[in-house]
């Protein structure tokens, strides 16, 4: 190989700002904050977001928010090529633990009905709310260099779905245990499954 390639790469050099997972996570948090503010500004936030929250409302807000933070941090950390592990199994464990907590909290609360009509509405709303964070994650993944694009894409997809479900918790007025456990779990799972392949592709480099 001649030195031509090295010379052309050096000639092409422009200053770059080293990427930082913390800064990227800050961008995602800002985006989620803007979405939440819009929900309030447009009068789409549900009533009763006060101190005395029903157990299932607390779960609907906290469980996906924790999962979203963990999955986002996992995906963003994996964008460093030096990291040879992603942590998707730990994310699966966290999601399962959140579901178990939900089932535990459902004991002694109003069970309610499955109500497919409002459930499908919730799933669609969550998908719409998941779109901006998922797109932002896609852009961040394109800039990264993950050692495992598929697993990183999956973690990012879980993050997108969980962000959507966490924001949905601010909107959905149905606190029935059945509704929360089924439809809000699907609100994470469906967008995550839909986004997994495109995000895995976005992570390839």
């Amino acid at each position, binding site marked *: 190989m001649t030195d031509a390639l*090295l010379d052309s790469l*050096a000639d092409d050099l422009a200053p*770059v700002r080293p*990427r930082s997972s913390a800064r990227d996570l800050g961008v995602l948090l800002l985006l989620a904050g803007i979405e939440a503010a819009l929900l309030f500004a447009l009068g789409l936030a549900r009533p009763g977001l006060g101190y005395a929250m029903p157990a299932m409302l607390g779960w609907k807000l906290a469980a996906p928010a924790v999962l979203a933070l963990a999955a986002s941090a996992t995906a963003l950390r994996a964008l460093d*090529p*030096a*990291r040879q592990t992603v942590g998707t199994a730990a994310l699966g464990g966290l999601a399962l633990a959140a579901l178990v907590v939900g089932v535990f909290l459902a004991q002694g609360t109003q069970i309610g009905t499955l109500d497919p009509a409002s459930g499908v509405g919730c799933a669609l709303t969550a998908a719409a709310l998941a779109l901006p964070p998922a797109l932002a994650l896609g852009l961040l993944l394109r800039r990264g*260099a993950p*050692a495992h694009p598929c697993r990183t894409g999956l973690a990012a997809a879980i993050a997108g779905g969980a962000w959507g479900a966490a924001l949905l918790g601010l909107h959905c007025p149905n606190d029935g245990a059945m509704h929360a456990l089924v439809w809000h779990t699907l609100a994470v799972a469906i967008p995550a499954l839909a986004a997994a392949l495109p995000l895995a592709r976005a992570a390839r*480099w």
Partner: protein
Amino acid sequence: MHRRHSRRVDDRAQWGTLMAAAQQGDARAYRALLGELRPWLFGYYRRRLIPAQVEDAVQDALIAIHAKRHTYDPARPFAAWASGIARYKWIDKLRAQTRAPEGATQVEQSVGGHESAVTSATVLTALLATLKPAQAEVIRLVKLMGFSIEEAAARTSQSESLVKVNIHRGLAKLAAAAADDADDSDSDIAGDRA
């Protein structure tokens, strides 16, 4: 020998500094870094790919390092970052090879004549499998992949002195195993002759 090894360690310690300067737009530092990375990448791929693919893989890796230079965090070791990129591009090459039509792969592979390299790699893998994982890992890193003792210690979470001890003991075991194999071969040949 020792002096040359120390100098190599010093040079590599500079790589992170050079990349940090390159991230700020220092083209001379960047050119110097690429010049040092090139032989390292050649060595890396020569041990993993058929000769006909080495040049291509080195170029791919250099371009990837250029395109993804913003993913390097100057606070972290450069060697781990660079070998992460080299490893990804190596796996990419292997994937491309499995996806390629059979005929094309055969033509490409027939160029190099790499039977001895493949045989050596197979034998080496089998020999390393007889060692303790900690010994095999540091021998692979230091003796085969060209990492320094310090880098191997950082990557394996072993202390530097433990890395040295593990290399020493591992190599002694390998030498003994190889000697046993040679004795067995000699006696087989003698048996055949008899």
